[in-house]
């Protein structure tokens, strides 16, 4: 007797659409039980996480734009990662590429301080993209030349990037007027380099606009462009793709470059806007969380857009639940984990069914006889 997972022959469209909603409800129920077991009011906790950031009169005016600000880097990075993941190219080091994008663009901005020019900001965007691509090309080239594992190389380079970031914060990018404390000048207060809200209290900064454009462009690209097709093919049928003339080296360079570039530019927008300055703790894990976002969004650009917003909601709402009800941060992380777990498992159940196979042995025999 064993459990068997097999593909469904008739996939239900209704289930496919409602799976994420069912997952959110399941999270609410099991998360509620978790909060109840800690002696907290589960209804209040769930309301604080999912409802209050969007609708409460006390918080929403501030929280709504914050949702967008927090989602933008997640969406940008996840978009890039999703292409590689489709092609079985696993860039786990987006966090490092995010740091390097911020460092290169920050270095440009700080070197030109206090020059006033409209070219500085675009130059910094370029710097962010190049910084991220540069850091992603290391695992790409090593993979092509020496067949190294890009998971390990890109992950290890995160720690290298963190060391460079620490060095920059206390060394070569340190604010000369900062009394020797770590941290660079505040770029968000340097008009030529700043990335402010375009409309007051909307949360819409250049990075948000950039992510929306990226969603549209990459959706088109995935569906209509030949390269989008080749990426899907390489992931699903590597051998077939080889026969059809797909150059896998080219795809490796492209996917790592795309994810690196987008992670780098996300770092640039974060640096010049919400974060403001280069500091030891500049990176807060967007590069890793984006991996979850990419899968939550089913590796599809539109899905990633919603997944990023949902993830951001659990952060902002989770913070509210923490200090309003004194729920520990670890419990909120468990709650976020539950959300991921239920989303992925409902997703599995949409495309596959689990059957209890009692006469497994007989089936096997039957199969071998047929062959």
């Amino acid at each position: 007797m064993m459990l068997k997972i097999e593909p469904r022959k008739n996939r239900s469209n209704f289930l496919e659409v409602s799976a994420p909603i069912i997952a959110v409800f399941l999270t609410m129920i099991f998360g509620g039980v978790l909060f109840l077991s800690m002696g907290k009011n589960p209804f209040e906790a769930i309301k604080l996480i999912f409802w209050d950031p969007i609708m409460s009169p006390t918080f929403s005016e501030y929280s709504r734009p914050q949702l967008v600000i927090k989602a933008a880097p997640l969406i940008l990075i996840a978009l890039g990662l999703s292409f590689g993941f489709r092609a079985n190219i696993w860039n786990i080091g987006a966090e490092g590429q995010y740091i390097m994008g911020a460092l290169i663009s920050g270095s440009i901005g700080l070197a030109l301080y206090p020059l006033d020019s409209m070219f500085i900001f675009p130059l910094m965007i370029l710097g962010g993209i190049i910084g991220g691509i540069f850091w992603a090309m290391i695992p790409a080239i090593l993979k092509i030349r020496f067949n190294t594992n890009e998971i390990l190389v890109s992950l290890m380079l995160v720690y290298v990037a963190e060391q460079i970031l620490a060095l920059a914060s206390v060394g070569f990018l340190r604010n000369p007027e900062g009394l020797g404390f770590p941290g660079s000048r505040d770029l968000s207060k340097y008009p030529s380099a700043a990335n402010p809200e375009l409309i007051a209290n909307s949360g819409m900064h250049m990075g948000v606009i950039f992510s929306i454009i990226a969603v549209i462009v990459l959706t088109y690209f995935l569906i209509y462009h030949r390269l989008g097709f080749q990426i899907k093919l390489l992931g699903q049928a590597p051998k077939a793709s080889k026969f059809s003339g797909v150059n896998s080296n080219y795809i490796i360079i492209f996917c790592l470059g795309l994810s690196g570039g987008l992670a780098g530019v996300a770092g640039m927008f974060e640096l010049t806007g919400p974060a403001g300055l280069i500091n030891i703790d500049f990176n807060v894990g967007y590069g890793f969380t984006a991996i979850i976002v990419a899968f939550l969004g089913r590796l599809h650009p539109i899905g990633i857009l919603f997944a990023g917003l949902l993830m951001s909601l659990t952060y902002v709402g989770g913070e509210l639940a923490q200090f309003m009800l004194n729920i520990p941060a670890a419990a909120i992380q468990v709650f976020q984990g539950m959300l991921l777990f239920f989303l992925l498992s409902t997703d599995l159940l949409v495309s596959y069914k689990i059957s209890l196979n009692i006469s497994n042995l007989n089936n096997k025999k039957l199969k071998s006889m047929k062959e």
Partner: protein
Amino acid sequence: MKILKIFSLVLSTFVVSGVFASDMKVGFIYIGPPGDHGWNYQHDVGRQAVDEAFGGKVETVFQENVPESADAERVMTQMALSGADMIFATSFGYMDPVINVAKKFPNVKFEHATGYKTADNVSTYSARFYEGRTVIGHVAGKMTKSNKIGYVASYPIPEVVRGINSAYLAAKAANPNVEFKVIWIFTWYDPAKEADAAKTLIQQGADVIMQHVDSSAIMTVAEEAGVYAFGQASDMSEFGPNAHLTAIINGWAPYYVKRVQQAMDGTWKGGEQTFDGIGAGMVIIGNMSDKIPANVRKEAQDLANGIASGDIHPFTGPVNKQDGSPWLASGETADIGTLLGMNFYVEGIEGDIPQ
């Protein structure tokens, strides 16, 4: 019986619905978990002291694991929106976020630990940890047999450099043959890195380890290797019952209770910069191990008492800088400005401060 039940039900409804609501709400923001047995734990001890001191009059809330980034600004804004009257931000990197949020909420009082930027509704506070390091420096100088003292340092900021200098001066005064070996690990909290650094120092012959990083990993390593170490921020003797000589304990409770009281009385002022030491109870020397000879324990206690009363200043001349140039003349004590911006080693320490 039934009446009692109904009564208690009514009572609990009243409590929940806020009939006995507190007069004041005070928020705390921590960089890590309060369970770290170090920096955050002591801030949380201070928060609990506020709870106890004011009973139901003050409600405290806290948020742990808040990164020093845009997230800090959001957490503080949400706390202020939720009705907090006062917010203690307990890590250096919250400095700019505090200033930004304080601008948006002029009626909320902000207290920022270890920073240097103030405003009409922002005061800062920091502890003279170097006073404690003078005391443990003396103990280290007396306890080392190899004459090599290892020092695991976090970031080359003035506070850390100050600690190394004061510990070295005291150790040197206690034992002229003493030598310092400093390893910079560029993090405040990373048990694995801290342990690695401690192991390296022990391999190089150090038999007393000092630390300016937050975890208890070094204490564990010291216990295994059979060398001595000191508790950082909290008493860490449970991690190294034999290794633990004493600890520098951060005593935030008196300050927190005092500032909340002032806020309630209307005498709280922004723009103030508190820099207290052993005398005010912000730096506490922990229990001394009986591994320390009685006479050394007494010397250390006298040193602490002398610093508390103001008779002894940890930085008293003659002291030269590392390059041999004179810093303090005989009998001269260091001024606060130099201490706050300290970016040089004193004479006798080898190696360079990373730039």
